[in-house]
């Protein structure tokens, strides 16, 4: 189990341990800790264009959360992040759970299906975004072409241009990209359940649904915890898919705007806007970061407790 721990605390030994530990820590401090602390610091300064001005305290934070210009944009985007989180929780993680259960039973061809479900996961998000953008083209994309060819003309829509379907289309593209991940994590979780437990439940005459709900779901709770936490972090850092598929503006008219796009626009500007503000961008990044850390920790703690109860 544990290594024996009575090494002589000689200088030579300490040097050896330092040799092992110091380079990775220095590396992390330099390229992760220092930039992040600096980003926090930037948020407290006024920025003239790209040049750092004077210390302004919490002004940038106030502007981001309550300012007449920024706040509506930020809250609108935040809401879309929440929608994406909820929808993906159901479609991506929930769908993954059911797929895992089907794979767990090892029906005919399950090896093939297991490989197939994970294919999109290894693709770059950029590729996935461009691919679905082409597929969703209203006049030439295969989605509408397929609907026309089976006579469902009225179902065909300008998916990414219609404010009622655009965000949904992004969410589905994301779910297509990643559903294999929760599926296979859940599958691994299910394979850890002692077969006797499931066997016993079956002998009691439990039907499939009850088995899934009362036995399997609680027993894969550790997988649920980590998958929900990862999804939470991912949903609030969402950037690549919207960037590629609808552009920096969250087109049409902000109906697909998410915080990742707002951050990028605020910090780096875009062609149609004028202002580029590192201070406000950093303030938004700081708030987003704090939000993610606090909620992800709370979520993890809450889900963990749920695990223990069973």
């Amino acid at each position, binding site marked *: 189990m544990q290594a024996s721990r009575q090494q002589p605390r000689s200088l030579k030994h300490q040097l050896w341990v330092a040799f092992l530990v110091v380079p990775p820590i220095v590396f992390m401090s330099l390229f992760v800790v220092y930039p992040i602390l600096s980003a926090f610091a930037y948020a407290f300064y006024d920025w003239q264009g*790209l040049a750092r001005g004077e210390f302004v305290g919490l002004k940038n934070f106030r502007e981001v959360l309550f300012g007449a210009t920024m706040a509506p944009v930020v809250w609108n985007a935040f809401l879309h992040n929440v929608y994406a989180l909820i929808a993906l929780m159901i479609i991506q993680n929930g769908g993954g759970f059911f797929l895992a259960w089907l794979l767990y039973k090892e029906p005919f061809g399950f090896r093939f299906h297991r490989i197939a479900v994970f294919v999109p996961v290894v693709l770059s998000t950029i590729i996935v975004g461009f691919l679905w953008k082409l597929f969703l083209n209203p006049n030439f994309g295969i989605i509408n072409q397929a609907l026309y060819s089976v006579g469902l003309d009225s179902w065909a829509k300008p998916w990414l*241009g219609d404010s009622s379907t655009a965000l949904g289309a992004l969410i589905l593209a994301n779910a297509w990209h990643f559903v294999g991940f929760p599926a296979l994590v859940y599958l691994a979780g299910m394979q850890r359940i002692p077969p006797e437990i499931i066997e016993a439940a079956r002998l009691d005459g439990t039907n499939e649904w009850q088995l899934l709900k009362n036995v399997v779901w609680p027993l894969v709770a550790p997988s649920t915890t980590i998958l929900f936490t990862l999804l939470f972090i991912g949903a609030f850092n969402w950037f690549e898919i919207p960037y590629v598929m609808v552009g*920096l*503006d969250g087109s*049409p*008219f902000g109906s697909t705007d998410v915080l990742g796009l707002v951050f990028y626009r605020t910090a780096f500007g875009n062609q*149609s*806007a004028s*202002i580029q503000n590192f201070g406000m961008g950093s303030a938004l990044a700081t708030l987003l970061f704090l939000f993610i850390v606090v909620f992800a920790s709370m979520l993890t703690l809450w889900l963990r407790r749920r695990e223990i109860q069973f």
Partner: protein
Amino acid sequence: MKLTRRILMAAAAGSFLLSGTAAMAQTELTFWSWRQEDKAFYQDIIKKFQAKEPGITVKFETYAPENYQTILSTALAAGRGPDVIQARAYGNLETIATSGYLLALDQQNVPELANFPEAALAAETLRSNGKVYAVPFAMQAQLVVYNKKIFKDNGLNPPKTWDEMMALAQALKAKNINPFSNGTATAWQNETIVGGLLSSMLGKEFEADIVSGKANFTDPRFVSALAKLKDISQYFAPNFIGVDYPSSQQLFVAGRAAMFAGGSYEVANFKNQNPTLDLGVFPAPVLKAGDQALIATYYDGGYAVNAKSEKKDAALKFVRFLATPEYGTAFTNTLKNLSPIKGIKIEDPITQDVAKLAENSMSYLMLVRFRYQEPSGSVLLQSNVQKMLAGQQTPEQAAAEINKGIATYYKPFQK
């Protein structure tokens, strides 16, 4: 394992070498641009410049337009960036000029500024100190590009009035031809469409009233023009709210639509993609016969010198070269864009047409006047027109939203 290690070491060595070998006796300038499609032209120009100035070489790099601002500003903020910068105009210029990243230009260091009209220099001037920061390179116009063959085959002529335009569009649609290839899915398309189709109905007087504060964007002229736009959008590309900019270009290039409301800069691009196209241009239709027909013009950007460059002298030499009539002529005739340099002889007939139309023009309003503060007039116009054309708000609501946003900072509206 050994092999991969060797490859990796070679890679490491290679990248050190790549970043390490700078010019020795030669002065090497770097020059950044977002005009990926003009690469061949610039390479050619650089060759000409290098022949004149054998001591200087210029390294030309282009970036995707949507990322250009990011890459440039991040580099400048870090005290880096190229020696010569293709910068945009108006508000986007101010972002980098205000921060002191650009070298101020005047008749002393760039005597060729005398070759430019006032309005062109104004586009590259910082409002706070009145100094010019870039040598303007192009004037662009928003208008209507049309497919002459489709017009001729159907016995149609370019419309003068709005009613003629509507009738023409209907006639085309009746024959199963897409009147316009335009769509609205890409936000900024909406601004170009407004510029291309509504300028004559808005009029120069409207612009003057906006500037003086006599009128704002809830003005009837603006609202009714938006209503007309909503009207004509039924003749845009099929499923137009989902048609993004490349798709609408594609429709027009493939000859599947008769008209394209947008930038004069697309003419050369369309011709490149489909040399068989016979194209013409006309200004935004007027409300009633006799009104002045206008196009919306603006200056695209300019060539600037990085204030932190260590090779300012060489960079200025290059920028001065880019301000000569010789350069302007090559620019206009190769790229079919209007150089603002005075006294250039235009060869291409369509470019001549655009130049003639430009004699009657108003500003491409939001870019020229309202991209200095947030929320920018462009962002407001784009998203609210997009929303209006999707049927999610009325022209009155769109106008009110645009006005509300601009009024938060625009003094003349706050009276």
